[in-house]
């Protein structure tokens, strides 16, 4: 029962702060609402018994990425962003395109049969650190290792783009 209340509360906070992030005129408020969204979603992960994912979500998104966002916004001094002038035609098109995707996804949700797996059947401990580590280092060892190439490539790229050219 308590879990259910927590679920509704977290969902409400996540959706409300996501909307606030989109609609607020001040970029700093936007970022702060986004952090709130991330915390709410991390709460959902806790409810799903995925503590590790929740912790990583807070550390990486709310901790690192959002601080970076805030930092950049303060550096650029964008506190009062002018309303950007997009043509109504562009606005109409983007609303239509986004609306179509929403429509298709809603249709999918509506037409899908009810899921028959009961909560007890699934292994509720699969989100714990120990089990996650076992899966990661057994079944998903190769993608885990390959991700290092990805990060190395991204790192070299970031250094390349930001370093001063020696004439």
């Amino acid at each position: 029962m308590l879990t259910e209340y927590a679920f509704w509360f977290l969902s409400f906070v996540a959706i409300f702060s996501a909307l606030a992030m989109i609609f607020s005129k001040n970029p700093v408020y936007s970022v702060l609402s986004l952090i709130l969204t991330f915390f709410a979603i991390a709460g959902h992960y806790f409810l799903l018994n995925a503590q590790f994912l929740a912790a990583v979500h807070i550390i990486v998104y709310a901790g690192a990425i959002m601080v970076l966002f805030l930092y950049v916004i303060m550096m650029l001094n964008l506190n009062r962003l002018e309303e950007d002038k997009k043509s109504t035609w562009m606005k109409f098109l983007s609303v239509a395109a986004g609306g179509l995707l929403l429509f298709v996804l809603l249709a999918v949700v509506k037409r899908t049969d009810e899921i028959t797996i009961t909560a007890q059947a699934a292994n509720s401990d699969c989100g714990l650190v120990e089990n996650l580590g076992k899966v990661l280092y057994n079944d998903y060892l190769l993608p885990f290792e390959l991700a290092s190439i990805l990060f190395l490539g991204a790192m070299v790229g970031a250094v390349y783009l930001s370093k001063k050219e020696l004439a």
Partner: protein
Amino acid sequence: MKELVITSLLGIGVLAFDILKLRKFILPLIVVGLLAVVGASIVDWGMNENLFGKNMIIMDNYALGFTSILCLLTLAWILTSTDYFTNEISRTDLYALVLFALCGGYVMCSYTNLVMLFIGIEILSIPMYVLAASNKRDMLSNEAGFKYFFLGALASSILLFGIALVYGATGSFQLDAIKNVLATAGSGTIMTAGILMIFTGFAFKVGIAPFHMWTPDVYQGAPTVITGLMSTMVKGAAFAAFFRLYYLGFTPTLEFTASIFAVLAGLSLIVANVMATIQVNAKRLLAYSSISHAGFMLAAVMTADSMNPRMLMYYVLVYGIASLTSFNVLYHVSKFQNGAEGFDAFKGLVKRNPVMAGAMTLSLLSMAGIPPLAGFMAKYFVISHILERGYTWLVIIMVLTSAVAVYYYLRIIVSMLTPIENAGRIVSTDSNRIGLLVLSIAMVAMFFLAAFV
């Protein structure tokens, strides 16, 4: 496994050689390493190596074939554009990025698990975003990198959403497991939505109309040498992944998605060829030409259930060689006239550098599909197979748009033949001259080798 290990170590080795002040040996190291990869894929041929036994990557003949093709294209690209990198101060970084991107290309043509597909695409894409923006002082290059990054990230997220939906519907990332579910239980609505989102993500990545908007801007803005890599290695890897997805996994869904494929292939051909005729910038023209070739390759993916994958390999290799040559010549031509990329820049090229003019003519005619050049056979394979499957209207579009393509390719050729007064020679390096000659010979030789496909 060997191929991936060699190439990733090569990337790290290049960086290490730069630190150790062994810059002279970087190029030989890359050449030896990439040849070793081709050798390794010959050794591994037919072994179907399953890395770590976890069905993440299976190095079957399809994967090894594409691995060697991507590797050879990258090697040819590096050898023909050495002079770009001597001018470039941070060339080791660029070499390392290209090699890391190549690793992503290998993963994309050998995956059997959707997680690997996503990681492969990211490993390939992220270095390419940086490479597109690698001319830091040029606003257009910056814009290209930015645009490529944003639209690429959007496409990746749509793809990832699709993968998540497919996982939700089938409970597995494995291609064979997905195929089993599709064959036995059919596809529900979630599965359909997932497959269409994966398709959309791919259409973005390979530049299929109407998701092609970024292609001309990015191809034009990025440094010409990098554009050459984007339209060969990157495009080849993307289509290898696309074809493999439908060859090994989503085959049963082709029944109801084939019509979407066919319409988009036709649309790409029409949009690209019509837009290409009104271009005044040769680089932008080649970008539109690459969209029209994407239309051809999409038609090959559409018939992945019955098509011999070697035909797609042949297409990727042939288009890669032609595109590599044309972008390389364009780079040298525009370098010698302060970055001019219009048709006028090509004037008098026959006198100014006969090797380049010859290679450019062959590559353009090959892309147009004129015998006896390999491009003809590549298009022939696709068209004959599509005709067998009964897509007569698509074949008509293909033939008509190819005729239009001849017109705009000939515009460049005509301007190369137009004499121009007091123009100096365009000097090129030895490796460039030899590289262009080898590529030209390959374009003719591949026509006759097509019998073995």
